[in-house]
């Protein structure tokens, strides 16, 4: 998606066409996710791919649809703190419960 003609609305929000394009990309990524799931050849690499796809979709919705890309950094800080604390704390807990080994 081109960065250039993002701002067409005086309040700095993306245009409707922009939203539709982002939605199509998200739909495409979901299709890729399901497709990758069925390709047996990628068994060993499946989990990293799925995680990357999920993170991409997550950040796209957050940045575009939730306007984190256009709004004040304060909102981003609040949300990202919650995510980072959750990920770190639960990763430590799950690893000490030997979920990954």
């Amino acid at each position, binding site marked *: 998606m081109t960065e250039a003609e993002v701002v067409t*609305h005086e*309040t700095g*929000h993306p*245009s*409707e066409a922009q*939203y*539709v394009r*982002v*939605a199509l990309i*998200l*739909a495409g990524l*979901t299709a890729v*996710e*399901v497709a990758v*799931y*069925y390709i047996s050849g990628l068994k060993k690499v*499946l*989990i990293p791919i*799925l*995680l990357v*796809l*999920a993170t991409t*979709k*997550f950040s796209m*919705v*957050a940045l*575009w*649809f*939730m*306007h984190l890309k256009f*709004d*004040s950094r*304060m*909102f981003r800080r*609040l*949300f990202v*703190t*919650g*995510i980072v*604390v*959750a*990920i770190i*704390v*639960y990763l430590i*807990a*799950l690893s000490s*419960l030997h*979920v990954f080994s």
Partner: protein
Amino acid sequence: MTATGVVVEDTGHGAAEAHAAHVTSTGLSNVKIAMWAFLGSECLLFGALISTYLLYRGKSMVGPYPKDVYDIPYTSVSSFVLLMSSLTMVLALAAIQRGDHRRLRVWLLATALLGSTFIGGQAYEFTTFYREGLSLHRNLFGSSFFVLTGFHGAHVTIGILMLLSLFSLSLRGKLPTSKAETVELVGLYWHFVDVVWIVIFTLIYLVPSK
């Protein structure tokens, strides 16, 4: 807790004095900071539920196991539906920011319908699993799956309730353009619930169970 009961009196057009209470230190609106703080804490809530599922993955003593019940194509369709509801939600917000109240109501209804389709899909999936012997009481998979997706479903249902309330308020002319922020808040909540489903769909359905 969705209703934030804020008393930021809408100065709207021409209200004379600007009270200090309405001029905020960061220039951002109180309710939006509150909503983002709330969404930050919700990450911890869904994080705990997802971690419980990941901990108990592959530890059920008895069937049915994820492989026996999961229908990936079916769930990916309902994921697509929820994803598209995020699009209609953001279009609804764009509509009210432009002052196009008719289009606002169309997109609000579309979002609520897509959300209801998703919930319908979940309900159908739950009954199918239940008929196949999976229940809260059956095994660890049943407990952790139903509680996680059930919590998410409850959040989506609350979202649909809010969307329908916005729709009826707009119908009765009680949602003026100056109140666009209310739609934005409901939008933030709705996108968050969609984003959580993105994580759930990948970690719970797609990542194969041990």
